[in-house]
């Protein structure tokens, strides 16, 4: 595949105005699926189940089976709609979206078409530079997820060249809310960052409502990014592409940026953009064409005759509205005050999209300062190296545990970094790794003293220097002791003891 020509980003912005639109799918974490009593793998209790074990006649589309709407999923969807500032439809309807695909058990998807449950909202999104952007929401509607195909025999894991494909229907029927923005104008050079920050805000909202696990790496949160360019001064919108498979915050930003540069290069040469679905490739940082997409795609939508309209009572809507958590912007202001962070410190966290992680980590017992140090420091470094989101590497409870082990003196910072690597590698909780690897700081003075005496005895010149008051010479002994202890000692304590023994 020939690499697409890209225009310099600043140059592209000079010539064109980017217009973006974002579709975010949120998997709800209800106990059962959208239309069937089968367990929901998007609920962490059922995550990772063996293929085709979380199924019922309904999600397999067996003849005679009928869908029944999950009331919890409707409540979650209403809460999400309200948190997005949307109006809730007094009556909304499900519709069938008809197309043949082997991961779609019935060969139609039950979705909402002309009557979504929530519509016309707006979400405040804050950028790194402090700019607050109102992202207009077109609609949020309920639907069911499809199953998952695994293509076997091909080199790329894609359908092309595969010998056969396996279907896992566990995901078939997982409740989804699809949130669609209106076209977003005026973001200009911030467009890539805005896309990322918007999805991050949706995640914050979903987590604060408790309606989704919202983990991008598990597909709980999925983003399709629409990008089009129009020449400066033009009224008419350009032709758009829809980039799919963007499943990390980093990728969203990169994919939008890439599309702006790619489209600008084509347009500047007098070429035209093909309206199509494009796939994001995490490894190469590029997009490639998928199937052509046109507005004439014919899904033969019609109202789902097996289901009644969804008619939430005004009381229910108000009850859910009253129970809404703080909007993210207000929430941030409160956290900043509670944590006592400076503007810069707080922005550092917020811009890394790690507010929720920090909050959870503090809740789990870490001090705000320690939580910030770990998330924006070592974890961010590891995430960067792995090309993944920090939140996908480690859970807040483990970070808190790590911070507490350091506070208690069980671990030094250096040891803690080793433990963290073990946690990321999936070896268990920090305490489990400390136990398994025997990494805890040696706090037994007896063992330290023995090592110190040995080191002093073998370096009589150093001992003499210390006795002469040249305290900095102790460093050589401390180093030897730390080495003998395999680094599992508190250097400060060793220093104290070295000075003590030298005088003795």
């Amino acid at each position, binding site marked *: 595949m020939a690499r697409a020509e890209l225009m310099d980003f600043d140059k592209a912005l000079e010539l064109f105005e980017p217009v973006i639109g974002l579709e975010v799918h949120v998997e709800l974490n209800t106990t059962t699926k959208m239309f069937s009593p089968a367990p929901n793998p998007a609920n962490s209790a059922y995550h990772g189940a063996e293929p085709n074990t979380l199924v019922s*006649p309904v999600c*397999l*589309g*067996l*003849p*005679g*089976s*009928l*869908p*029944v*709407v999950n009331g919890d999923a409707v409540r979650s969807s209403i809460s999400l709609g309200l948190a997005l500032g949307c109006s809730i439809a007094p009556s909304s309807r499900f519709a*069938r979206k*008809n197309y*043949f695909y*082997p991961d779609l*058990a*019935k*060969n*139609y998807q039950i979705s909402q078409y002309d009557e979504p449950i929530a519509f016309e909202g707006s979400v405040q999104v804050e950028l790194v530079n402090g700019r607050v952007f109102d992202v207009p929401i077109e609609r949020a509607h309920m639907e069911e997820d499809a199953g998952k195909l695994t293509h076997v025999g091909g080199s790329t894991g894609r359908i092309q060249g595969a010998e056969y*494909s396996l*279907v896992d229907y566990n995901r078939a029927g997982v409740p989804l809310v699809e949130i669609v923005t209106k076209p977003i104008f005026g973001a200009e050079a911030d467009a890539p960052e805005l896309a990322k920050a918007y999805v991050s805000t949706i995640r914050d909202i979903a987590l604060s409502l408790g309606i989704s696990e919202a983990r991008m790496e598990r597909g709980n949160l999925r983003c399709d990014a629409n990008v089009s360019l129009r020449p400066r001064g033009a009224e008419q919108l350009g032709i758009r592409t829809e980039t799919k498979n963007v499943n990390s915050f980093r990728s969203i930003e990169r994919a939008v940026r890439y599309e702006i540069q790619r489209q600008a290069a084509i347009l500047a040469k007098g070429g035209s953009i093909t309206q199509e679905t494009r796939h994001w490739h995490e490894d190469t940082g590029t997009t490639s064409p998928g199937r052509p997409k046109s507005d*004439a795609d*014919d899904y*033969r*939508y*019609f109202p789902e*005759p*097996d*289901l*009644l309209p969804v008619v939430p009572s005004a009381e229910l809507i108000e009850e859910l509205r009253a129970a809404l958590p703080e909007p993210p912007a207000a929430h941030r202001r409160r956290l900043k005050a509670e944590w006592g962070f400076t503007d810069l410190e707080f922005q550092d966290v917020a811009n890394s999209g790690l507010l929720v992680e920090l909050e959870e980590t503090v809740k789990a017992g870490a001090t705000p300062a320690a939580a910030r140090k770990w998330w924006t420091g070592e974890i961010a470094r590891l995430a960067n190296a792995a090309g993944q989101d920090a939140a996908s590497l480690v859970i807040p409870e483990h970070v808190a545990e790590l911070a507490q082990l350091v506070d208690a003196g069980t671990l030094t910072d250096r040891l803690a970094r080793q433990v963290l690597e073990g946690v990321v590698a999936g070896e268990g909780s920090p305490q489990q790794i400390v136990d398994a690897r025997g990494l805890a700081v040696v706090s037994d003075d007896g063992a330290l003293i023995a090592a110190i005496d040995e080191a002093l005895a073998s370096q009589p010149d150093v001992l003499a220097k210390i006795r002469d008051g040249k305290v900095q010479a102790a460093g050589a002994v401390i180093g030897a002791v730390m080495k003998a202890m395999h680094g599992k000692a508190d250097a400060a304590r060793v220093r104290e003891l070295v000075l003590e023994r030298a005088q003795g």
Partner: protein
Amino acid sequence: MSDDLIRLSAADLGAKLAAGEVSSVEATRAHLDRIAAVDGAVHAFLHVAGEHALETAAAVDAKRAAGDKLGPLAGVPIAVKDVLVTKGMPSTSGSRILEGWIPPYDATPVTKVREAGLVPLGKTNMDEFAMGSSTEHSAYGPTHNPWDLERIPGGSGGGSAASVAAFEAPLALGSDTGGSIRQPAHVTGTVGVKPTYGAVSRYGSIALASSLDQIGPVTRTVLDAALLHDVIAGHDPLDSTSIPESWPSMAEAVRRADVSGLRIGVIKELDGEGFQAGVRQRFHESLDLLAKQGAEIVEVSAPHFEYSIAAYYLILPAEASSNLAKFDSVRFGLRVTPDGGGTVEQVMAATREAGFGPEVKRRIILGTYALSAGYYDAYYGSAQKVRTLVQRDFDAAFEQVDVLASPTAPTTAFKFGEKLADPLSMYLNDIATIPANLAGVPGISVPAGLAPEDGLPVGIQFLAPAREDARLYNVGGVLEQLLEAEWGGPLLASAPDLSTHELTATEEGAL
């Protein structure tokens, strides 16, 4: 003894079982013997579950012996239309594409009849996916009308109606999307009821058109239909369109039947051109009898009924085209792989090409077209508007009368092949039954006699407002009593004797 048992009504058989005069095993065996004797000629059944039925019967007998409290139909055999899925029994909906598929679960109406102690005998023949009025579209060969084996038994539920008319089962379950219970009842001299939409769960009924399908009883007497109705009706949390409220007893409505003061509306549009003379004659004689009992007969108009068939043949194919999309070979049923293998799309296409019959393909194509972008408003959208107008016709009519009446179908049973080449004339056979499905109102077909010109059965249809199913049992029960008094017994007593049609070994193999 065995011949006596099969001719009893379900109510009478239930009473004998309760009194201990006969066991369920004996009753079941008598019906299985009858099936063995005549079904080679009738071909009402696609699958006979003899051993399973006898085990079920023995279990009911054991419960009775243990002193368990059982319902009025406990131990009574029943035939089940193949549109309903049955755990452990093949369920094909009359289609090649489901040949050999054994469902892992029971349809809710089947669960309910099992819980009431009824004994499922097997699965009955039908037009493929319930598309047809003659069973000639069954992938497994047609069912023959017990009154004349050269004629159709109606459809799509010809198998259920014929099984009851041929005394192979006292009761059967049917499904009615545009008349598939009532029209077969009309041509076989039996009773068929389409309950109010949502009265009986559709869970486990292989969907034809979800907004029109309704499961109902197929029997020889009005009381039997009411007893079965009472068993299968009621809310089902697995079917969102099932009505949550509880129902009055239909059997009680039959027992207290009284038509004095009942206002019966004759639908003007369904009582003239296109209706066979003998059909109209028996219809009006029935109305005269009811009038003598104090019913008030008035003429009403339903001006939009004439558009019913046009609307129906857009809504039904549209829903069916989507409902039948799941038959793709991926998870169950037939799989046809093109020579040398193929992509999943090619396998799906080859399977559907081989597995669906011509009528099914015709309707899938019609429905796909009607839902297509650019045509939706003109076809599906307009059809839904007509549907609303038909519902308004019913609303207006029921402001004047308590029930409506019409002949159930325009003609008596036609001969095999007569309408096969002309789908439109086949569709027109459902002109009187379709409006009820469009409006969701209940309907019953009760035997009204034999047409003088051909000696074949004729039915009369009554329709009631939604949720007023009891009115149908009231008027049907009275009419049945009056007519049987005139005839000196049930109409089916005059049906030809089928006992000469022993099942031969080769025919058994063809079962």
